[in-house]
């Protein structure tokens, strides 16, 4: 929407030409500066500038939906109203059905708690046909730390869903739907997720698991604030990927211990403490 062309918005030809002459081609160009500055730049009266901006804004604004129609659309179009069941009763109840589709879900925990196991279980249940609570589709599993074990997945399948797994050829079919990627570097990872964007719809990918996000950075050299920024683009990309293709994306993260004294506070908290 930000890149919508001003030329196609139905503005008065005179203004349209002025915008083009000043190299203001997309809505982003026009709206990235305060109105007064725009007026100075295009050398047109305030009233005309305001009405041009109003028209551009109306054309660029996102559409309005009532919350009710959002809900109804989810119920109608998405399997299980857009949730992937975890098969943990309490968790599924709290999450209103399971891991939500169309958003990024983060699994956080200390080492050894079972994050990778959880991911493998999710991957398995997503590959199942709908009748067994699955999403009946492929799963892309990005395994950065080489924690994925197919033997373990099949064992999970045999124990948790015996009715399905004992059927002839089912194990092969289900396991065959889980595609495992082992990126060797951040650049490699970036490439892979960019490729995914196009192939998700074509290949019926219904779940993306990234285990783990932090391990991607451990190989890279930068420190502190730059480290955070490195993944910033990827997170945004994954977020929009999830929303666009309406699939759940599960990401794991590690915890780091924090000293109580280290916890940051607001300035008013510091002054309140000093009073006591």
């Amino acid at each position, binding site marked *: *929407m*930000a890149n919508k062309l001003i030329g196609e918005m139905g503005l008065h030809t005179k203004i349209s030409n002025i915008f083009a002459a000043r190299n203001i081609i997309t*809505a*982003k160009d026009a*709206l*990235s*500066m*305060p*109105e*007064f*500055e725009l*007026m*100075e730049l295009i*050398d*047109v*009266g*305030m*009233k005309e500038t305001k009405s041009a*901006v*109003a028209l*551009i*804004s*109306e*054309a*660029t*604004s*996102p*559409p*309005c*939906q*009532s*919350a*009710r129609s*959002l*809900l109804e659309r*989810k119920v109608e179009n998405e399997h299980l*109203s857009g949730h992937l069941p975890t098969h943990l009763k309490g968790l599924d109840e709290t999450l*209103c*059905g399971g891991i*939500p589709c*169309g*958003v990024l879900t983060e699994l956080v925990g200390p080492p050894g708690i079972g994050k990778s196991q959880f991911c493998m279980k999710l991957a398995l249940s997503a590959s199942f046909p709908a009748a067994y609570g699955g999403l009946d589709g492929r799963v892309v599993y990005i395994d950065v730390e080489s924690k994925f074990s197919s033997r373990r997945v099949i064992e999970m399948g045999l124990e948790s869903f015996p009715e399905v797994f004992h059927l002839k050829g089912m194990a092969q079919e289900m396991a065959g739907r889980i595609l495992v990627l082992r990126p060797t570097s951040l650049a490699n990872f970036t490439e892979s997720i960019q490729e995914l964007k196009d192939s998700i719809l074509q290949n019926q990918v219904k779940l993306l698991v990234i285990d783990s996000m932090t391990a991607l950075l451990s190989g890279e050299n930068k420190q502190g604030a730059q480290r955070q920024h490195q993944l*910033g683009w990827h997170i*945004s990309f994954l*977020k*929009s990927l999830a*929303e666009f293709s309406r699939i759940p994306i599960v990401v794991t993260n590690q*915890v780091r211990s924090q000293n109580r004294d280290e916890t*940051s*506070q*607001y*300035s*008013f*908290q*510091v002054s309140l403490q000093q009073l006591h």
Partner: protein
Amino acid sequence: MEAWRLALSSSIRGKLISAGYTSLSSISSVSSSDLARDANITEDEAFEILKLANQSSGSNSCNGNRSLINGAKNAWDMLHEEESLPRITTSCSDLDNILGGGISCRDVTEIGGVPGIGKTQIGIQLSVNVQIPREFGGLGGKAIYIDTEGSFMVERALQIAEACVEDMEEYTGYMHKHFKANQVQMKPKDILENIFYFRVCSYTEQIALVNHLDKFISENKDVKVVIVDSITFHFRQDFDDLVQRTRVLSEMALKFMKLAKKFSLAVVLLNQVTTKYTEGSFQLALALGDSWSHSCTNRVILYWNGDERYAYIDKSPSLPSASASYTVTSRGLRNSSSSSKRVKMM
């Protein structure tokens, strides 16, 4: 006042000044046709200029029994207005108390806090509570929810709406003294129908939407709250030029204030948190910088105190600084009791 201060395009201004019209008094004393001829502009343009000049020169032509300056109101009249201003309850009476009854309409309130403290929860709660009908002490209005992060969970909104309807039904039981919950006109799905949801994906869309809100609200006059969740998100990542960002944000804040005053609605802006290095240590502060922090009328900071959630009035023209605790329950925002605290990591 000088002519170059008028809001005109630079070429017309240039023509005026080179024709010798440097002060407002020189412009207002001449007729539009003379001005057009002297400055080499069209009659229409001259007429516009004269109109602008007369507006800016202030009113020496004041009405005797009206105020001295056009558009001013005296403080006594405003007191009556301020006291009768409706407020939107947060469903947590402790929080309402420190807010002077709730979130005030005609004001811009900024609410900031770390991730997970409950900003989106407050946003959803307010968009439901604004719809509480007048007979229950509410505003009976509609809500606009601008989602920049994708945090809005429609199932959660339904949960909160259902709890709200149940509370209203219980209330009618008390009111009519038969202590039996009575059927209420409003249904949870109706509440969802009155939340206008916009999903914004870039700062361009955010600016465009704020510009467009004037027209949208004129066509939907019963909107009484505009919630932006969060105003920070797109401006933090994608805007490289910080000076430009400050200017664009200030303009946006002004537009929100105008909307609040014009339509008598509440604007609630949810903000994220950043760490600043001051006084020898890292401290938390709301994002978007110092200039932005001047833009909002009221500021509420949500924070953790041990394992409990607290809200602190950081900035307000009329309320004292105070803290109150609140909790987020399955029914929405409520007063805290000792049992509902943050779950400790095992």
